[in-house]
């Protein structure tokens, strides 16, 4: 079930810096590419998602970049804040099928 590979496993960034998390997938049938954010003791929460017909989507400090030919998409967090410290998961899916989560990236933003 290794359809999704996420990197890095952990990331430490200074406050105000840029955090970049990558996700590589194998299944070309995926047609929805979300990132989820999970805090300790909570379930994952949808952060931002993209469809394959666009290459980039920005929502506030969060940006998804999508490279269909490379079968990769990434999450960029600009001006990272200590409150962004959490575990991030990519979870691509295709219509009428469920999500396949990556192993997660633990982000720590140092003040």
């Amino acid at each position: 079930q290794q359809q999704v590979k996420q990197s890095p496993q952990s990331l430490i960034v200074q406050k105000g810096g840029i955090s970049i998390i990558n996700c590589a997938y194998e299944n070309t049938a995926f047609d929805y590419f979300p990132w989820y954010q999970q805090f300790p003791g909570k379930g994952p929460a949808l952060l931002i998602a993209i469809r394959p017909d666009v290459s980039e989507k920005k929502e506030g400090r969060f940006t998804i970049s999508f490279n269909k030919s490379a079968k990769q998409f990434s999450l960029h967090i600009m001006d990272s804040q200590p409150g962004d410290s959490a575990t991030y998961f990519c979870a691509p899916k295709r219509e009428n099928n469920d999500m396949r989560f990556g192993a997660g990236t633990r982000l720590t933003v140092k003040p």
Partner: protein
Amino acid sequence: DAGVTQSPTHLIKTRGQQVTLRCSPKSGHDTVSWYQQALGQGPQFIFQYYEEEERQRGNFPDRFSGHQFPNYSSELNVNALLLGDSALYLCASSSGRGYTFGSGTRLTVV
């Protein structure tokens, strides 16, 4: 807040016992998915229910079974518990592509 509600929040069971976990979906959502999240891992898909039927299933043994009721709420049952079943069990509801997760049930098997 009409989010996803899971019960109980924590549970301790003995090997060989059976357990039932419950999930009430977000208002307006008709599809419920269950995930198992081991410590330090990403959630693993167990199964999904829609219109009271199991629509999809992940790579989990038959000891894991479920049910969806007419009001869209759902149960996850696990029989013959093993130590390896200790995990956070997450319920997610949806009515399209976006999923809303509950905070999960932490199951410990001793």
